[in-house]
């Protein structure tokens, strides 16, 4: 793995927000490599900039300066439209509150990203069924989010994240809204995605138990990155 280039390369990244007349520096000179197939946890106190960093890696926010390369593509130089297309093909998202569309069934929610892929209906069905099988929810594909537990909804969200076979998965507090048992199931599922399918996962979490599942933990404090090996926890 060491011979392969990192899937994510971040160099000298700065990000600030304006609040009224004040400029709030959120990320300061971040440089980071993430290897393919790695499970990385970003930790830090509230307001430390970890979600901002995750958003920048996922291409849903823009940096003030610096570069982010994902799979060799410098996403900081892409236009809005190109970035949207890039996200659709390369990034899977797992959110704290699942963010499923309530009027769509589990099947339809997982199918959503594929609507942009140009695949036939039959091919889409095959992909969705595989994704739902991976998360052990093939028998619930016709259920609406409101008919599923929190853990099941998050599994549907994970199926939606992997259905396009993206290069990286980004997860923002994926267990933050779940009970302990469900959280454990989700973390095990994420581990499986890394070990069995070879996915790269970048996860923001407050939960040390969740972070323990990661290969590498990075701490952010006031916008500055510090590496912490898992053994430290």
């Amino acid at each position, binding site marked *: 793995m060491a011979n392969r280039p990192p899937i994510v390369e971040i160099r000298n990244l700065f990000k600030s927000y304006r609040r009224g007349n004040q400029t709030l520096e959120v990320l300061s000179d971040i440089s980071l490599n993430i290897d393919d197939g790695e499970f990385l946890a970003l930790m830090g106190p509230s307001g430390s900039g970890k*979600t*901002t960093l995750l*958003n920048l890696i*996922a291409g*849903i*926010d823009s940096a003030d300066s610096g570069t982010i390369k994902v799979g060799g593509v410098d996403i900081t130089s892409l236009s809005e*439209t190109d970035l*949207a*297309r890039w*996200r*659709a*093909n390369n990034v899977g*998202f797992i*959110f*704290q*509150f699942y*963010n499923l*569309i*309530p*009027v*769509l069934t589990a*099947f*339809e929610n997982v*199918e*959503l*990203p594929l*609507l*942009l892929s140009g695949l036939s209906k039959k091919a889409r069905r095959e992909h969705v069924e595989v994704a739902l099988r991976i998360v052990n929810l093939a028998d619930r594909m016709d259920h609406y989010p409101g008919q599923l537990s929190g853990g099941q909804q998050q599994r549907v969200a994970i199926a*939606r994240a992997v259905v396009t076979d993206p290069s990286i998965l980004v997860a923002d507090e994926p267990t933050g*809204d779940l009970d302990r048992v469900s959280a454990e199931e989700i973390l095990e599922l994420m581990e499986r995605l890394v070990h069995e399918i070879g996915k790269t996962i970048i996860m923001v979490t407050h939960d040390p138990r969740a972070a323990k599942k990661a290969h590498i933990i990075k701490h952010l404090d006031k916008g500055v990155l510090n590496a912490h090996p898992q053994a430290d926890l």
Partner: protein
Amino acid sequence: MHILKLIYKNAFRHKLRTFLTILGVTVAILSFGLLRTVVSAWYAGVEASSASRLVARNSVSLVFPLPLSYKEKIRQIEGVKGVSYGTWFGGIYIDEKNFFANYAVEPKTYLAIYPEIIIPPEQWATFIRDRKGAAAGRKLAERFGWKIGDIITLKGTIYPGNWDFVLQAIYKGRDETVDETAFFFHWDYLNEALKKAGRLWTDQVGWYMIEVKDPNLAADVSVRVDKVFKNSLAETLTETEKAFQLSFISMTEAIVIAIQLVSFLIIFIIMAVVANTMAMTARERIGEYAVFKTLGFGAFHISGLIFGESLFITMAGASLGIVLTFPAAEIFARELSQYFPIFNVERETIYMDIVTSLVVAFIAALLPAWRAVNIRIAEGLRRIG
């Protein structure tokens, strides 16, 4: 799963709100359609006018008559094909609320100029023969339950006394633009009765109807007619039938303008109702739109979802409103036939309904779509939870 399915499902997320919005659009389109039909009914006489018919009346006012002797002089004017005349009788049937238009005319020539009035041949023959005979429109006869042979008594207002007529003919219009609520009788009957009673205005007519050989000659013939009677005791004012009808409408123009304003106000109200629904919808789902953007959906899809939903709700209401306009107009026509002899929902009104609904749907979705498309993903995602 198709985007159209998502639009449909989105539209019914808040069933009560969607139902009330659709109901609002339905009522508004129904009202708009009826008001436009009222305006059309106002102009029905103008629309039914023939380009080859002229009306010559006293240049001072329609109230003043013209001598009967003008008929022959007009007939000899170059470009004139036929001449007839009529007088407004203004009779009341039982009660003033039973108003309908009634005229004394010279039937043979008058109805020859109006080929759109169709009378069965046997009824026509009896009507012509009977000096006290009268012809009524189909709707008028239906309204009062008149049958052929019935004696109809009108109370004169301009010509005092009770006037008895025998209903000898019931006419139909050639098409739906023809007024079927008028009542015609022999001018000779009126004139002779006036002579017998020693009244004024005998051998006088209210107006002349002139048929021209070629509609292109209408302006020239008008000028020629008026020239013939210039400096006479009763100068004429000759104009096309359309201009004649429009002169009546101009007297009530303020009402027509008011109705038109109200109809456009209704459009504004529909727009406010749908815009409010769409604004609430977009505000509630801003997080979802951020999720769509995260997944790679662009402005086209996101605005498509909002415009599609707005279009669905508006067109559902509009379709219902259009469908209901027809039975509502029938009830309107039946109840107000004395005011609006012709009350038909025109094709143009339906087109206006559709175009208006499309415009409303588009404008109502414009701002919510703009907001949804331009929301920063990170900001939109923060609104969830």
